[in-house]
């Protein structure tokens, strides 16, 4: 499922999830730290309260004055969150008690029982100077502290408050945090939608270029690679790969279209090129000249001087052909010692001129066989020129005509040209 989603949406989802996770963690930590600090602050207030009350309570405890103790505890009414207070004498007997107005009786009894149980459980701590006991749960928190007279404990004071203030602050904070988180998340998602293109654009460009190359087979396409980051490397790699494909294609094309010994066009390429030439000439009504050429007595050269010498003869004839052909003519080795020259726009006169030039060029050529031996060969040529009417048929007809003229040149004694 996830692998079907576009990378840009994956990025948005990823950025959104990361932001949400970061906000969640930070919110939890913040709220927990606020809970701790608020809890400590509330307990600190209770400690301060018990400090003040115990100072005043000392005389009441010292003289067992329950009425004064009750009056002092009644002053706690000023703080609506103080729910219960208890002062006990050194024997653990309650001297005075305070319950907030509206505190349900059962709840008050439970709180009182909890406080008294804690007093008994922590009796040792509550006899030490500076000793105090904290009691906290979700709904209530309390502080118990001993009251000393002349260095000896004479009672214990306990004040219990509800945690309403603390939870109210935490609720406010949670609401604020949720609101802040939602706004931040929306902003981050908006930014991630905008920023994802920074990452996805180079990838999409690459994908488009790959699709384009796959469709058009145009391996000469080049992707802009001005970036210096990993995308730049990726684009550069893509361009290098295309360049390698181009080089390989060129090599394959060269191998497929040229003759390995002479570097001239091979038969297949010559036929293709000739067909293109004829089609163009047919369209324009121009003539095309064809010269078929064969090295005279080539078998004797091979037999007498060996195949390497024969190859050198073929290469030398090819050089003469190329030297006398124009750039837009087709020069090909059809096989063995047989060659073809197709002259674009070649009238009979121009083609004959070229044929004679080739013949004399080959005739004049001295091919070095060894330090003191040189060869010399001649060629026979069949010349034909015509304005093509139908490209496919004319190829065969024109070649056949030139070939028959070549045959006649051979018959006539070699080292000459014959016009068809």
């Amino acid at each position, binding site marked *: 499922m996830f692998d079907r989603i576009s990378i840009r949406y994956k990025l948005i989802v990823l950025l959104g999830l990361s932001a949400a996770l970061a906000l969640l963690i930070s919110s939890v930590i913040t709220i927990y730290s606020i809970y701790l600090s608020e809890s400590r602050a509330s307990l600190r207030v209770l400690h301060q309260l018990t400090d003040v009350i115990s100072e005043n309570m000392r005389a009441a405890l010292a003289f067992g*004055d329950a009425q004064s103790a009750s009056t002092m505890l009644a002053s706690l009414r000023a703080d609506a969150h103080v729910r219960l207070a208890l002062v006990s004498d050194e024997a653990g007997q309650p001297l005075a008690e305070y319950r907030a107005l509206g505190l349900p009786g059962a709840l008050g009894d439970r709180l009182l029982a909890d406080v008294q149980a804690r007093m008994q459980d922590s009796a040792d701590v509550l006899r030490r100077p500076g000793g105090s006991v904290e009691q906290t749960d979700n709904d209530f928190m309390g502080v118990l502290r001993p009251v000393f007279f*002349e260095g000896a404990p004479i009672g214990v004071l306990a004040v219990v408050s509800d945690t309403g203030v603390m939870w109210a602050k935490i609720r406010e904070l949670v609401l604020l945090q949720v609101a802040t988180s939602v706004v931040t998340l929306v902003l981050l998602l908006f930014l991630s939608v905008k920023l994802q293109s920074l990452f996805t654009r180079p990838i999409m460009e690459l994908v488009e270029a790959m699709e384009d190359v796959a469709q058009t087979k145009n391996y000469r396409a080049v992707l802009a690679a001005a970036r210096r980051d990993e995308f730049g490397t990726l684009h550069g790699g893509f361009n290098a790969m295309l360049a390698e494909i181009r080089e390989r294609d060129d090599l394959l094309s060269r191998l497929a279209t040229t003759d390995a010994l002479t570097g001239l066009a091979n038969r297949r390429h010559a036929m293709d090129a000739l067909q293109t030439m004829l089609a163009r000439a047919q369209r324009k009504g121009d003539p095309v000249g064809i010269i078929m050429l064969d090295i005279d007595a080539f078998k004797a050269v091979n037999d007498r001087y060996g195949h390497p010498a024969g190859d050198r003869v073929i290469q030398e004839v090819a050089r003469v052909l190329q030297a006398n052909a124009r750039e837009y003519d087709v020069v090909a080795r059809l096989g063995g010692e047989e060659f073809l020259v197709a002259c674009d726009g070649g009238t009979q006169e121009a083609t004959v001129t070229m044929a004679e030039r080739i013949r004399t060029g080959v005739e004049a050529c001295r091919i070095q066989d060894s330090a003191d031996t040189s060869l010399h060969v001649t060629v026979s040529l069949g010349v034909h020129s015509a304005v093509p009417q139908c490209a496919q048929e004319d190829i065969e007809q024109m070649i056949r005509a030139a070939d028959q003229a070549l045959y006649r040149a051979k018959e006539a004694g070699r080292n000459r040209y014959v016009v068809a």
Partner: protein
Amino acid sequence: MLPGVLALLVVLQAPWAWAGDEERKLEAVFIGRFASYIEWPAKPRERFVITLLDDNPFGTLLDDLYRDKRIHNKPIELRYATRLEQVGETDALFITLTSASARAAAIQHAQRNGILTISEAKGFAESGGIIQLDFVEQKARIKINHAAAVKSGLRIGAPLLSIATVLRGDKP
């Protein structure tokens, strides 16, 4: 018949007897605690002296209670006097005299010498004594004559005043 009546009387009186013992103990404790809330004019004595004038209702209670204890960082010395003339230099004077005139004389002596006076006699505070202590239903009631304390050169701490009935002049 008679043993039965006696036994009934013993049973009926036992709680009161118990209450009396407890009150006496508290009274003994309170004498020292009063002292903690009161400042005396500086005196060159090395001991804090508590003197009991006339009958001793505490038995050995005071000795047991204040042995090895300190008040205002001084060791406590207990003295027992039967006549005013026997009262020497002292810091606190617990008066059990039954005669009003004898008590008045003792109060006069105390005021002249900067002595804290304590008694459980009715009308003690109104007649110039500083602290009157009595128990009603096992609960202590403290009455303080602040003017008398000032006259004696004593300063009484606010916490003690806050739990006591304070006479300013002759009226509460």
